[in-house]
């Protein structure tokens, strides 16, 4: 058993005065994929946002390699690649510009090779100079996923990554996930559909 990289213990969150989850604990080692399941409104998105420190948690700790992530928020954010339920793309920028800007916004130098390989993972190479606003919902989702890959972050937080994806794109996502995990990366994904090789954590019970 590999030692845990990410340790969450006793996490509690409230939204609008309502308890979303209490005393939630789990640990994740390198190369592990955790699928968050549960009904609509069971707190999957809230948990992802709490892990990213976008939503304050009432209690509990989140540790990365033993250090509390609240102590150095910027360092923690550098470890994260985020896919929200919105794609976060700028419609007036092209596909490739969107990903390059996202890389620079993470404080990384623009790396055209990694962008090209992320684009080819999701079969976007032929679309790369199209304005994002001209793409379909599934194509936009693929661009957002390519942005996650190009972020080169150890922990991916994905909110419904399979939304709007067709069968081929789902296969591409599973391949992308497998490559990230094989390199020792971690993934936490809120999802309804099954993901390859995932451990599941069911919320709302």
């Amino acid at each position, binding site marked *: 058993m590999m030692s845990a990289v990410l340790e969450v213990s006793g996490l509690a969150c409230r939204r609008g005065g309502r308890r979303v989850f209490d005393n939630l604990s789990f640990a994740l080692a390198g190369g592990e994929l955790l699928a968050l399941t549960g009904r609509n409104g069971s707190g999957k998105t809230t948990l992802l946002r709490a892990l990213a420190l976008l939503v304050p948690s009432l209690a509990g700790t989140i540790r990365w390699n033993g250090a509390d992530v609240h102590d150095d928020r910027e360092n923690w954010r550098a470890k994260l690649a985020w896919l929200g339920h919105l*794609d976060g793309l*700028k419609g007036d920028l092209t596909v490739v510009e969107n990903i390059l800007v996202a890389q620079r916004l993470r404080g990384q130098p623009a790396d055209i090779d990694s962008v090209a390989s992320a684009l080819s993972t999701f079969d976007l190479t032929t679309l790369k100079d199209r304005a994002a606003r001209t793409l379909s919902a599934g194509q936009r989702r693929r661009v957002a996923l390519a942005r996650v890959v190009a972020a080169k972050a150890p922990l991916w937080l994905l909110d419904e990554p399979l939304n709007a994806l067709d069968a081929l794109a789902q296969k591409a996502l599973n391949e992308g996930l497998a490559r990230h995990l094989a390199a020792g990366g971690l993934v936490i994904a809120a999802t309804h559909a099954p993901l390859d090789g995932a451990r599941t954590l069911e919320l709302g019970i």
Partner: protein
Amino acid sequence: MGFGALFLRDLRLVWRRPGDVAVVLAFFVVATVLFPLGIGPESNLLARIAAGVLWAAALFASMLSLDRLFAADYEDGALDLLLLAPWPLELSALAKCAAHWVVMGLPLAVLAPLIGGAFGLDGKSLLVLVLTLLVGTPALSLIGGLAAALTLGARRSGALLALLALPLCVPTLIFGASAIEATATGEGFWVHLAILGALALVSLATLPWAIAAALRQAGE
């Protein structure tokens, strides 16, 4: 690095849609031109009110363009990426306000003397008008940026934004307009300009933190 990336991204987005800025600048021109039409062509009166009219119109034009400042990022999810960028959110707030100033404050400072000339302002007053706009509009971008961040997610956020920001812009308006009047009456304008600069610097030193706090709140 992240600051420059966001600043350039926003400039590029404006460049792709120049109409958004053009509409606001056209509003500025039309709004100021309405005054001579309403008041009548008495040149002494027009020259006297020119400073106030131009500054008030510049204020309205800034407000008009500010309601999309953070709302666009909020609606398409890009705000989450800014919140998760591994550098202080205050810098992001500053970068966005700086980009707003470049696409609104600067063009207003270029346009205003053309209209001021038509109002009958003399050469020195026009120069002071440009100076006050250059020094004063950064404060408008920052104050408006705070109002834009605070009204994120609100319905009818445009009206609410103006209601929040306009009172806070009053000192800038007063000293901007009075600098031009002081030039016309032969007093020195430097004191007014210095106070205007001080207002802009105080905004610069405090508001990025307030904007960042408001953005974090909106991201919850």
